[in-house]
C-alpha cells in the first residue's frame, strides 16, 4: 500500500513537472516529445499484447504439454531468447524483405519486440506452472476433473498471479526496448530525441527529458502491476 | 563485581517485565523469569507460545520492546554508563554473549566447513585460542559426543543426528556458562532423537552449565530437568519440579495440554 501511494505521488509530481516545463523554454521540444511519446505508447501497447499472448501460449506449451507442441515452443523460446532484440529487429526489417516479406516498420518493430520478450515471458510462465504444486494435479485426477479443466480452472489462475512480478519486470524491459525501434525508422520518443539533438545540440536537456518520459512510463506500469497483484492474490495463500 | 553489574543477586538469568511483540502480535507480556546457576529448566508448551522467543531474546537474536534481561546481574539490552542506562556497545554485548551457547532446531551448521572446522571457528576467532589448542579441545569434545571418526566430514555427509551432535559440540567449544536448546530434536527422524538426547542428558548431569531446554520431548524433560515451566499465551502458566508438573498439574490449560500429548503418543 505504501509503495502504491509513493508511486502515485511520483506520477503526480511528474505530471506537475511536465506542466511547468511547458511554460518554460523547454516548450520548443515538447510537441516533438509528445508525438514521440504517443508512438512509443502505441508500439509498447501492441508489443505488450503480443508479449502476453506469446508468454502464456509458449509457456504453457513448453511447461504443460509434451511431444511436438513442446518441441515447437522450445524451439521458439531458445531462438528468440538466445539472440539480442536489436538483431531480431534488424532481421525483420532488413532481411525479411529479401525473402519477399515486406513489413511496415511498425509491424516489424512490434513483432520483433513482442516475440523476443514473449520468449522470456514464456520461461517465467513455465517456471510458475512447475511451481503450482504437483499434488494439485493429482487431486484433480482423484476428483475426476478433466485435464483441460484442470489446466484452465486450476493451474492458469494461479500461474497468472504468480507471474505478475516477473512479467512486470519483463514488461518494463520491453518498454525500454521500444527505444531501439528508432533504428528501424519508427518515429517514437528516442527517434525524436535524436532528431531534436541533431537540430538544437542540447543533449543534456533533451535526453534528460527523454529519460524523464521513460521513467514516467515505468512508474505507471509499476502502479498497474501492484494493483493487479493485490486484486488477484486476495485469496491466494502465499507459501513461504 | 562485573563491569556492567547493577546489583548482586544469586541468579544466573533474570527476565524482568519483558515485553516482546512482532508487529501487532504480543508474544511476551510483562514476562518475569529467574534461573539459578547450573540449574536446568525445561520449557514446554504449544508451538508459537513464545518458548523459542525467550531463548532468542537471551541469545540477543531478537530485541525486546520493554523490560530488561540480566545475565550474572548485567543487563544485556542496556548498559550502565555513568549511572545511566544506555543502548549496549558492541564490545559489551560480545563479552556477555561469549557466555551463552545455543543449539538450533535446524542445526545451522556451516555447510562449507568440516565438523572440526565448525567447532574451532568461535574459539579461535573470539577467544583468542591458538589453532592447535582449539583443534585439540574440539577433538576431545567431538569424541565426547561420539563423533571421533567424523572430524573431517562435511555436514552434507552426516545424518541429522550427527549434525545436531556437531552443533552441540560447536556450542560447547565456546566454553559457555549457559546452554540454550531450541527444540533440538524436532527436526530429527525418530531413530536419531535418542543419540542427541543422550548427549544433552550427559551435559545436564555434569552440572557444569545453566541449561534452558525448549522441547516437546516430555519424557526427557521430566527425567533431566530441575524445573519445568509450562508456557502459554506469553507467560509461564505453571512451573515447578517435574514430578509435580507432570503427575499433578493444577492449571486447566496445562492439564489439557498434557492430556493431548498423551493422546497423541
Amino acid at each position, binding site marked *: 500500500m505504501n509503495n502504491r501511494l509513493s508511486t502515485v505521488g511520483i506520477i503526480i509530481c511528474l505530471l506537475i513537472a511536465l506542466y511547468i516545463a511547458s511554460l518554460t523554454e523547454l516548450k520548443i521540444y515538447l510537441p516533438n516529445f509528445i508525438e514521440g511519446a504517443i508512438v512509443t505508447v502505441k508500439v509498447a501497447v501492441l508489443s505488450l499484447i503480443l508479449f502476453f499472448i506469446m508468454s502464456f501460449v509458449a509457456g504453457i506449451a513448453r511447461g504443460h504439454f509434451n511431444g511436438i507442441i513442446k518441441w515447437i515452443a522450445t524451439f521458439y523460446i*531458445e*531462438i528468440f*531468447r*538466445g*539472440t*539480442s532484440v*536489436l*538483431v*531480431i529487429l*534488424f*532481421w525483420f526489417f*532488413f*532481411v525479411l524483405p*529479401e*525473402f519477399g516479406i515486406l513489413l511496415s516498420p511498425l509491424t516489424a518493430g512490434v513483432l520483433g519486440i513482442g516475440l523476443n520478450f514473449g520468449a522470456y515471458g514464456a520461461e517465467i510462465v513455465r517456471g510458475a506452472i512447475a511451481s503450482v504444486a504437483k499434488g494439485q494435479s493429482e487431486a484433480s485426477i482423484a476428483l475426476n476433473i478433466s485435464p483441460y479443466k484442470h489446466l484452465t480452472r486450476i493451474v492458469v489462475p494461479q500461474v497468472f498471479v504468480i507471474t505478475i512480478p516477473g512479467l512486470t519486470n519483463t514488461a*518494463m524491459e520491453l518498454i*525500454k*526496448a*521500444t*527505444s*531501439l525501434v*528508432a*533504428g528501424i525508422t519508427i518515429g517514437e520518443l*528516442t527517434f525524436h*530525441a*535524436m532528431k531534436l*539533438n541533431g537540430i538544437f545540440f542540447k*543533449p*543534456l536537456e533533451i*535526453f534528460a527529458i*527523454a*529519460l524523464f518520459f*521513460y*521513467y514516467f512510463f*515505468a512508474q505507471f506500469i509499476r502502479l498497474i502491476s501492484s494493483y493487479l497483484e493485490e486484486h488477484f492474490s486476495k485469496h491466494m495463500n502465499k507459501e513461504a | 563485581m562485573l563491569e556492567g553489574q547493577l546489583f548482586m543477586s544469586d541468579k544466573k538469568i533474570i527476565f524482568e517485565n519483558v515485553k516482546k511483540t512482532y508487529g501487532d502480535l504480543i508474544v511476551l507480556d510483562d514476562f518475569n523469569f529467574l534461573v539459578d546457576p547450573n540449574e536446568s529448566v525445561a520449557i514446554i508448551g504449544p508451538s508459537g507460545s513464545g518458548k523459542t522467543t525467550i531463548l532468542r531474546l537471551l*541469545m*540477543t*537474536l531478537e530485541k525486546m520492546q520493554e523490560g530488561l534481561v540480566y545475565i550474572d546481574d548485567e543487563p544485556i539490552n542496556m548498559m550502565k554508563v555513568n549511572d545511566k542506562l544506555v543502548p549496549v556497545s558492541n564490545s559489551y554485548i*560480545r563479552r556477555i*554473549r*561469549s557466555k*551463552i*551457547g*545455543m543449539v*538450533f532446531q*535446524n542445526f*545451522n*551448521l*556451516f*555447510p*562449507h566447513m568440516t565438523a572440526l572446522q565448525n567447532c574451532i*571457528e*568461535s574459539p579461535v*576467532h*573470539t577467544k583468542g585460542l591458538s589453532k592447535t589448542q582449539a583443534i585439540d579441545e574440539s577433538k576431545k569434545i567431538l569424541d565426547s559426543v561420539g563423533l571421533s571418526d567424523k572430524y573431517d566430514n*562435511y555436514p*552434507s*555427509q552426516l545424518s541429522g543426528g550427527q549434525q545436531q551432535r556437531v552443533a552441540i559440540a*560447536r556450542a560447547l567449544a*565456546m566454553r559457555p556458562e549457559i546452554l540454550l536448546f531450541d527444540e533440538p530434536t524436532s527436526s530429527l527422524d525418530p531413530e536419531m532423537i535418542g543419540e542427541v538426547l543422550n548427549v544433552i542428558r550427559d551435559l545436564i548431569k555434569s552440572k557444569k552449565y545453566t541449561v534452558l531446554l525448549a522441547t516437546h520431548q516430555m519424557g526427557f524433560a521430566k527425567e533431566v530437568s530441575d524445573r519445568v515451566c509450562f508456557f502459554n499465551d506469553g507467560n509461564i502458566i505453571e512451573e515447578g519440579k517435574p514430578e509435580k508438573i507432570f503427575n499433578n498439574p493444577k492449571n486447566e490449560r496445562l492439564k489439557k495440554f498434557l492430556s493431548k500429548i498423551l493422546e497423541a503418543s
Partner: protein
Amino acid sequence: MDWDWELTLEVVIPRLLEATWVTVYVTVISFLLSLVGGLIFMILKTSKNRLISIIATEFIEIIRSTPLLIQIFFIFFGLPRFGITLPPVTSGIIAFSLYNSTLCAEVYRAGLLAIPKGQWEACTALNLSFVRSFFRIIFPQSLVPIVPALGNFLVGIFKETPILSFVAVAEIMHVAKLIGYEYYEFTEAITTVGIFFIILSLISAKLINVIENYVRRTVIHE
C-alpha cells in the same frame, strides 16, 4: 533462397571476426567495472545513513527504468558539453558499466538473500564478529547462487553490445549493417550475427551449468 556463400565466407565472416574483438573488449571491461560498481551501489543502497540510502535507491531506479540507449546518448553527446570528448567506445563502456552496475547490485543482493537466516543466527550464537561472519561464513556460501548469476549477467552484457551500433562503435552488429549497405545484401550478415548469438547463448548456458555444479561441489561439498 539464394544465400550468397561467397559473400559469407569472404566478407561477412572475416569482418565479423575482426569486430568480435571490439564486442568482447567492451563486454569484458564493462563486466569487470560493473562487478565493482555493483558492490558500490549495494553498499550505498544498504547504508545506515538514510539520506545516502534514499539517494542511491532513486538514482538506481532512474538508471534501471530508462533505456540504456538514451543513457548512452546522454553520456556520448553530453560529456563534450563539459569539455570531455571521448571516443564512442569509451562512452559506451561508461554507460554500459553504469547501467549494468545496477543489475549487478541486484545479483549480489539476491545471492546474499539466498543464504538462510539461520546461518547469520549461528554466527551470533558463536559470537563471531560481523567481519568474520560475513567473509568466512556468509560470503563463501553466497558464491553458489552468485557465480552462475554472474555468468548469465556476462552473457546479458554481450547481448546488449549491438546497441552501440547507434553510436557507430565497430562491433559486430554495426559491421553487419555496413556490409549490408555496401553490398545491398543484409541477409547473410545479419543472419550470421543472429546465429552467432544463438550459438553463444546455448554454449554459455551449458558452461554456466557446469560452473554452477563445480562451485556447489567445491564450496559446500554436496
